[in-house]
């Protein structure tokens, strides 16, 4: 068991012929992930690392029962690519593309919600389930085992890079991960931490979750509320980065676009207080994740 992606994932990659997408396809195949098809308009008949390319997702779906699509197209075409995935009733859409206009993101995310499609991203580095050797996106690069080994800890991160670093801390503590989800650093994303925690709650494989939070948004506060209402009952270990941002003039952005403190809202100190009140484990230092995990996992 895992969340979002597992051995039953039937994967298509939209924009597969791009430079980064073809490299990622190569790494994913080498890891053991099965990628059924790719989509790039005008390039049907070609193949990328042996994966057949189709002009439309509809044509790819005629040959394979695609249930997961990874969007790798440039920002100007991302809106249409996501709408194409929703139109073809793909239940899980993972959007890697960065710098998509906000207006486009709101429109496709609202449409996906109505169609009951789950969206991860935009601006996600990917999702990985090591036990099933499934990885989507650049996550783990050419050496996924360095950070991602199978185990019972879930990872949720607003930062792509810190998804790997969190999983590596889990490994250093002597454990492994069930599924790691890079949810994306944008203001408007399909699967905020609360939603992903709901999935981890249902997953018997996951015994605890490590979460990387940042300034801005209400995501961490929503998580605290969710835990108080018993939506998530397993141990949650959280680290909130960017505490120095509170000392900077308001409205200044460091890191991701969403990590902005506005009108006194989105402060890391408030997020940590809310999570503490909900009885989460707060890692004061990032290094503290290791001893906390060791304590939590051996209980």
């Amino acid at each position: 068991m895992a969340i979002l992606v597992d051995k039953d994932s039937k994967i298509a990659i939209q924009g597969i012929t791009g430079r980064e997408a073809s490299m990622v396809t190569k790494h994913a195949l080498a890891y053991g992930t099965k990628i059924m098809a790719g989509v790039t308009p005008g390039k049907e008949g070609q193949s990328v690392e042996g994966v057949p390319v189709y002009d439309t997702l509809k044509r790819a779906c005629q040959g394979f029962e695609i249930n997961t699509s990874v969007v790798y197209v440039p920002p100007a075409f991302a809106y249409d690519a996501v709408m194409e995935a929703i139109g073809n009733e793909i239940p899980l859409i993972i959007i890697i593309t960065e710098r998509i206009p906000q207006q486009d993101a709101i429109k496709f995310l609202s449409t996906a919600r109505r169609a009951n499609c789950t969206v991860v991203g935009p601006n996600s580095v990917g999702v990985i389930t090591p036990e099933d050797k499934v990885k989507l996106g650049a996550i783990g690069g050419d050496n996924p085992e360095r950070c991602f080994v199978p185990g019972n800890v879930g990872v949720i991160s607003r930062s792509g890079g810190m998804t790997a670093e969190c999983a590596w801390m889990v490994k250093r503590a002597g454990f492994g991960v069930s599924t790691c989800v890079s949810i994306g650093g944008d203001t408007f994303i399909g699967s905020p931490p609360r939603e992903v925690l709901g999935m981890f709650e249902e997953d018997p494989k996951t015994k605890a979750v490590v979460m990387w939070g940042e300034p801005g948004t209400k995501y961490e506060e929503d998580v605290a509320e969710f835990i108080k209402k018993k939506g998530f009952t397993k141990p949650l270990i959280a680290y909130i980065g960017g505490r120095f941002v509170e000392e900077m003039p308001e409205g200044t952005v460091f890191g991701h676009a969403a990590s902005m403190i506005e009108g006194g809202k989105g402060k890391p100190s408030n997020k940590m207080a809310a999570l503490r009140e909900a009885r989460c484990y707060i890692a004061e230092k990032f290094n503290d994740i290791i001893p906390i995990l060791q304590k939590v996992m051996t209980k």
Partner: protein
Amino acid sequence: MARVLENVGKELLRENGVPTPDFLVASNSEEARSAAEKIGCPVVIKALVTAGKRGKAGAVKFAEDPDEAAKIAEEILGMTVRNFPVDRLLVEKRLDISQELYVSITYDSSEMAPIIIASSAGGIDIEEIAQAQPEKILKYHVNMLKGFDLYEAKEIWSDLGVRGSALQKATTILWRLYKLFVKYDGTIVEINPLAVTASGEVVAAAILMGVDDDALYRQPYLSDQVEAGSDRAWRPLTALEKEMIEVDKAEAYRGTARYTEMEGGNIGFFCGGGGGSLLSYDALLRFGGKPANYTEFGGNPPEAKVRGLVKGVLSKPGVKGFYMNLNITNNTQTDIVAKGIIGAFQELGIDPRKFPAVLRLAGVHDAEARKLCTEAGLEYHGDDITMEDAARIIVDKMKNAYPEEAD
């Protein structure tokens, strides 16, 4: 977000059918005098800067005649409004206002929808209205898939008690403002006040507007008028920050970077990832380090870009150490990053053996990165240490190298 200056915002309003007072831009007192003559007094003179709350800063004043306009222009042109020096002014017709309304359109991230905030008590900060007269504020979420219809705008003003011809006019204006917000990929459009004049006209007396940086590619008109990322600093960009934007732009599609200058400090900060840089900075402060700047980079930058960025980081006066901390990379090639850093040290003639420096650089091709750095004399760490460990190492090095600078 990129901030739009008021003259540009007002031109957009007029083009899109929203009335504004007549205005002209002036760069000195003589231009202000002749602007006042052309427009006809009384006039309002405003600092033309992207900083908000100009009125409170004393950068919005009235003039009864052209001489007074020239005198006031002189005063405001010497001012600095929230760190932004005033080099231009907006001179506009002073309205005879009978009622001040307020309206803004922005995105509500928790509802994932545009939100319209309107009030029948405009003219002051919306925060103040919310405190003093919360009953005079109305919030309305727009269904972006459906769009915003005229009747919805009418209901908003009607519920706020606006009546008669003002209701009709304010309705059309709000409907057009929403269209403008969408058309120009706005992130905020705020009209305060939306003035009802003594003669019954409804006029947008002031506009505050921001647009989505990531949509500038499809806004050719605006992309020439605004500075991308202009909201990311609390003051105008410094010369070095502007240079670093050019370094980043030179190869726009490979690797992204952003450079921000901090006050004082002695550690050149070149750290990776949106999240990784936050952690690196927090850790540095916790251990007592003094960062001189903040550079975050990611997305597999080419060697020349890394070299250019690191040269910038090291060239800020007062920088006496170098701290590079990166989360274990998913796709960024660490050997390329290492080559760029080594190249920057060489070009600047800095001997890494005599200059406190630490790199924590693990991930794709890191065996090669380790080899290159070790040969060059740079202290290299891969995934043998954590990111926080790397912060402690540079802080200790700085304390040993410059004991007189330690607190």
